[in-house]
């Protein structure tokens, strides 16, 4: 029987299946960061358990790390304690760890692929919802809670039931200036933030195939914003070329064997999905969010919507609340919205391609005088690469801040955060109330659009930007 990519990965990872279909599935890779792991290690310690497969586990500090001068150490005592706790735990349990002074340190979902730790056909988990990012490699990757982190550390397995499958096919060619971020924001707008609940989504179609690995990661990253457990893209030549010779990727004879298996993974012709969605790439415009849910998207040419036009009472109430929170009035043109801050970073858009795209826009220009703009590279290696290409200079000359790698303003757990009422054009993934700081207002968009907004001081149609 023809199988989907999801079914192939699932079937090869079932360790035990109970009569009611509850499965114990094996976990090939486990990423660990400081925020969601302390209670899991504590649980292990209390039960006298060890980490079953230390080689399958990689730890990094990212959420709390300062992005300014690191020689000063961490100022906030709780952040400091959380990172020190992780450092003690990795030592005690023998886990590979990229510490703050390691060049390979960075956002957990950026460093996994960068090291070749993430590979096709694997099951990958992390105590973090954006683990879906790794699905770009054709691996089944999803976020878990801390109890499950402990479960994986102790048993290298998880108790799961198979998900339903959805295929989203984006066919055609996107127009110039349309990026992976616009594609995924558009998709979330189409299916809604609960549209993917219970599903694993496979992205297919020519517009997806033609994306780079960086772009594919952006799409899979925001799958969680559509409510789905995981996103998948079939591995192909682009995937293999990206992985070849990465430090933790298979080498030599093993590389050949691995590739041979990876090539068998793509969904078979005739395999069926529980749900199919088709999207025409030509319908996708540069896209931004206006509200406090990632489904609140509009083409940049749009106007802030009017709750009076909404018939569903719950949705209407949510819109009224969102407009009040965002300080916006129905009918305002999106391109008339002025911004205070620009954040280019996060596991959605802080890879080298994202920085190149932003640099291309700002080269030779100046950040608007009322705007504070910052670039936070996704990892130490991305930062080094960008510096080698001279991108840091372009940003600094234009008036951007050039920071150390970490999650930073994506969620504001370290000292980077917005003040109440401040409006930010952000390349991150969540525009929730309070996400970037209490009362902070977030507009999600692509790196190029964020860069253009930094220069003009307001939301800007990248197609009109000169």
């Amino acid at each position, binding site marked *: 029987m023809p199988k989907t990519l999801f079914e192939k990965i699932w079937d090869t990872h079932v360790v*035990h299946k109970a009569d009611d279909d509850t499965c114990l599935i094996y976990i090939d890779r486990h990423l660990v960061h400081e925020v969601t792991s302390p209670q899991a290690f504590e649980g292990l310690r209390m039960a006298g358990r060890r980490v079953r497969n230390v080689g399958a586990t990689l730890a990094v500090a990212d959420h709390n790390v300062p992005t300014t001068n690191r020689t000063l150490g961490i100022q906030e005592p709780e952040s400091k304690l959380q990172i020190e706790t992780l450092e003690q735990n990795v030592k005690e349990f023998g886990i590979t760890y990229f510490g703050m002074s390691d060049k390979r340190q960075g956002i957990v979902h950026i460093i996994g692929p960068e090291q070749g730790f993430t590979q096709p056909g694997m099951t990958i988990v992390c105590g973090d919802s954006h683990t879906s990012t790794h699905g770009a490699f054709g691996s089944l990757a999803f976020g878990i*809670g801390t109890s499950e982190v402990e479960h994986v550390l102790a048993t290298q397995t998880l*108790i799961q*039931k198979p998900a339903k499958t959805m295929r989203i096919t984006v066919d055609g060619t996107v127009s110039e200036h349309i990026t992976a971020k616009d594609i995924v924001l558009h998709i979330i707008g189409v299916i809604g933030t*609960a549209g993917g609940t*219970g599903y694993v989504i496979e992205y297919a179609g020519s517009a997806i195939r033609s994306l780079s690995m960086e772009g594919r990661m952006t799409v899979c990253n925001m799958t969680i914003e559509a409510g789905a457990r995981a996103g998948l893209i079939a591995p192909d030549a682009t995937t293999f070329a990206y992985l070849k010779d990465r430090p933790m990727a298979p080498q030599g004879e093993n*590389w050949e064997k691995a590739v041979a298996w990876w090539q068998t993974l793509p969904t078979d012709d005739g395999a069926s999905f529980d749900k199919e969605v088709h999207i025409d790439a030509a319908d996708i415009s540069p896209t931004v969010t206006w509200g406090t849910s990632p489904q609140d998207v509009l083409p940049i040419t749009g106007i802030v919507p009017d709750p009076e036009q909404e018939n569903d009472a719950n949705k209407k109430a949510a819109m009224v609340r969102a407009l009040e929170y965002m300080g916006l009035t129905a009918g305002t043109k999106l391109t008339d919205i002025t911004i205070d801050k620009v954040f280019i970073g996060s596991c959605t858009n802080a890879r080298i391609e994202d920085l190149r795209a932003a640099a291309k826009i700002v080269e030779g220009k100046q950040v608007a005088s009322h705007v504070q703009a910052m670039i936070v590279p996704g990892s130490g290696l991305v930062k080094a690469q960008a510096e080698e290409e001279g991108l840091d200079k372009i940003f600094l000359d234009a008036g951007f801040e050039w920071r150390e790698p970490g999650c930073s303003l994506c969620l504001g757990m370290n000292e980077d955060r917005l003040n109440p009422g401040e409006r930010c054009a952000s390349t991150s993934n969540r525009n929730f109330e309070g996400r970037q700081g209490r009362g902070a207002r977030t507009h999600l968009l692509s790196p190029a659009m964020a860069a253009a907004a930094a220069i003009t001081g307001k939301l800007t149609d990248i197609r009109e930007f000169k």
Partner: protein
Amino acid sequence: MKKFDKLTSIPAPLPLINIDTDMIIPKQFLRTIKRTGLASGLFYEMRFDESGNPKPDFVLNRAPYSSSTILVAGNNFGCGSSREHAPWALLDFGIRCVIAPSYSDIFFNNCFKNGILPICASQEVVDALVQDGENNKEITIDLEQQKIVSGNVVYDFDIDPFRKHCLLNGLDDIGLTLEKESFISTYESKCAQDKPWL
């Protein structure tokens, strides 16, 4: 994990849709290295003003809801971040059961690991229970029977049998899984042969 069997309380109504885990427990409370003590951060920005004083109109700040053990909410509850701090904070506040039309997968999962019962109910049932809450009417959750009892009205709910079993008996997943250790070892040796690159 604490066993769950029956629960009676006036439900606290919070009928907003898309309540995300950033709203349930904002990031400044995630720096803890413990599971307990998070009640003070629950719904922080909705519950407290800028100077940290309780907002009198927020539902959980008002009697009798301040001692509710059941929360009734809108669609897509618990969306967003995977932080288990969200169910920890609910639990620490005393909430043992959430009733909503739908949930995000990760939050839903996390509840069961902490002895919280998340019930999926239709919008009509949720609307009726919100009314009960507003009328200060007690309801009872009977997990064994899979019933929500509101006076003479009884609603059935579905739950995965394995999860029900674990909740009723307060079972720890890791212990259950380690009973299958031999299956894990067999899988690992086969994998070492089939996928030597792992």
